[in-house]
């Protein structure tokens, strides 16, 4: 198979992995090509609107495992191919020099023993770093079940490592991916977390002195959860993500709407990937990462799934009317973060403007505050910013009317399509 054909096949096989970030690492190679910067760089956007930052391919799409939801599962009737290490090095360097990419994201089907698969991925990274002196970004998939020695070696060449959990509960894994072991995946994640912490500690000891050991995966680790292939509710997913952030110190959890790739009876019948559900999960994820929410606050037992009509922060605000209104001149930064329509930047601007004087309500839109939402939850000088029919705050407004007012309006055809797509048409036998 010629290189172009192989590239098409192994890029298509890798496109279900949502991650393509090149952030979290600052690296350069004075003697060679390439550097990465902490914020990462997007080099293009595909027709599905996703950022292209890395050359994202599988080393091989041959796989011993037969996970029901996976396009590359052993039983799938697809063409199989594998790259050679030199082909991948040539593609990475060629694309990098033309500014198409920030680096390489290399994953693989499990075509052999986990140690052998991991060794192949490491070899590509080793050639790039040692022979080519490549200073760009490298994201390697950690193959669960491989030895700790190999994971440690991978972390010395890679900026980021990831092991995908894919399904949020042991029962779903047992049902849809019986050859995968949740214990093995979490074991690999724990080991990588420890190695990262040890590496940081070692480097602290060497601070300011020569001979500091290289950093282990400076951009940390990430994982991915497939959304909609199993009957697990959003609360289960959000709580798992919260635990991964707080206990295993993951940098990112990605959510990938399940794309029906087979007629396996264990899978739900969907008209299309549950994109709106995926979108809401990302919003909930942002609440945990940037808005100081605990995962348990976002959903509870009585409401285990994220609303489709409103975002998770608005849903929380409507459930907690007594928390509002908040005074723009007095509320703490962390309180302002809970106001629908106020983002991290807006909350920061309100707080910094207060240092120079009072915040005038008419200035709020210019600070990036979305008043259509925020006016229901803010006050100024003790006076609510909005009153209608005697209702001056969420606690006194008609809750149904307020919810309707704050509901997301589908903005374009694609959003309407997404919103209209049924999210949970499970056909579990």
């Amino acid at each position, binding site marked *: 198979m010629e290189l172009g054909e192989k590239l098409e096949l192994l890029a298509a096989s890798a496109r279900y992995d949502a991650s393509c970030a090149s952030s979290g690492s600052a690296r350069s190679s004075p003697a060679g090509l390439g550097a990465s910067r902490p914020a990462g760089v997007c080099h*293009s956007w595909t027709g*599905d609107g996703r950022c292209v930052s890395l050359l994202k391919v599988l080393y091989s799409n041959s796989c011993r495992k037969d996970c029901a939801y996976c396009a590359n599962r052993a039983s799938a009737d697809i063409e199989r191919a594998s790259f050679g290490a030199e082909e991948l090095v040539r593609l990475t360097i060629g694309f990098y020099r033309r500014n*198409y990419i920030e680096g390489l994201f290399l994953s693989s089907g499990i075509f052999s023993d986990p140690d052998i698969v991991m060794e192949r991925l490491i070899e590509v990274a080793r050639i790039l770093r040692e022979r080519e002196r490549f200073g760009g970004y490298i994201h390697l998939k950690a193959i669960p079940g491989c030895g700790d020695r190999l994971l440690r070696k991978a972390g010395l060449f890679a900026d980021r490592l990831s092991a995908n959990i894919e399904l949020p509960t042991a029962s779903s894994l047992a049902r849809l991916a019986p050859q995968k072991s949740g214990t093995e995946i979490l074991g690999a994640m724990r080991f990588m977390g420890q190695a990262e912490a040890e590496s940081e500690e070692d480097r602290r000891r060497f601070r300011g002195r020569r001979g500091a050991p290289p950093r282990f995966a400076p951009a940390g680790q990430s994982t991915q959860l497939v959304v909609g292939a199993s009957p697990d509710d959003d609360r289960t997913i959000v709580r798992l993500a919260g635990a991964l952030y707080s206990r295993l110190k993951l940098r990112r959890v990605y959510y990938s709407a399940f794309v029906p790739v087979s007629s396996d009876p264990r899978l739900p019948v969907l008209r299309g990937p549950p994109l709106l559900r995926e979108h809401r999960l990302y919003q909930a994820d942002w609440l945990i990462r940037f808005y100081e929410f605990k995962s348990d606050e976002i959903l509870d037992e009585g409401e285990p799934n994220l609303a489709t009509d409103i975002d998770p922060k608005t849903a929380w605000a409507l459930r907690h009317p007594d928390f509002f209104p908040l005074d723009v001149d007095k509320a703490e930064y962390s309180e302002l973060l809970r106001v629908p329509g106020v983002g991290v930047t807006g909350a920061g601007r309100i707080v910094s403007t207060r240092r120079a004087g009072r915040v005038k309500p008419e200035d709020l839109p210019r600070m990036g505050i979305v008043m259509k939402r925020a006016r229901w939850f803010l006050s100024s000088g003790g006076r609510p910013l909005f009153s209608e029919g005697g209702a001056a705050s969420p606690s006194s407004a008609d809750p149904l009317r307020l919810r309707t007012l704050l509901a997301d309006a589908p903005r374009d055809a694609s959003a309407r399509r997404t919103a209209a797509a049924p999210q949970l048409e499970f056909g579990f036998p």
Partner: protein
Amino acid sequence: MIGGTWSYDGSLEGLLVLAHRAYSEASPPDAVANALAADGELFALLGPAPLRGAPFRGSLDPSPSELGRAAESASAELRAFSGELFDTVMKIWMSEEALELPLFRLCALAGRRGTEVLADHGNPDLRAVSRAARRVGREIDRLSGLARFFPAGDGLLAAPIEPDANVLAALLPHFARRFGPEDFALVDLRRRLAIARRGGRFESAVGEAALAFLPSGAGVGDEAALLWRRYFKAAENPSRRNPELQRRLMPRRYWKYLPEMDGAGGM
């Protein structure tokens, strides 16, 4: 109060000196006259060497003029006062928008009341210059990812760009770091300016000499571009197709030189 009309030549040096004057005298002008000559010299268009980072030091402006020295001293003082204010001055110059007056008023206010005025988002002058600075910042970020380099002979890789703002000098440190020891050139076709690094030395050019960095036929038949097109098509997930989102994130005006969007496969 000083007031009156302040005139300058449209150069970055001139803007820096006047911004510093407003800051140090804590008083702005009533009006500004920007007299950028149509045939303004290259150094004025690119900005003085020391302000563009170490790679340029000494290589473009070996005998800095009196204005250059004044600008260097002004920039050092502004930067020491507030990196944010200094960055804003630079971006206002790159924006090529007539925002000198609000900028000088902001500098004067900062000189009177300190850096806290830079956080007062109720101030209309701050809002006007911040908006323009953000636009320039976005342009720099976008082109850091969307500039496309083509083989241009003798091992040189050259990228044509047509930015709305004059961001060539701001892109240079990013690509110098990215290319390590390799040769490269950035050519602003709209302004007919170019910056290149060959054999470890920086060069610059204007007019026809700038365009010469992109010889006719450069990049035609480049195998990497052909492979990239194939990769790009395969990486898209057809079940998630959303071209509107793609256009929002990557406006059409950037597509001209993107091989993956069927832009120039070569020059």
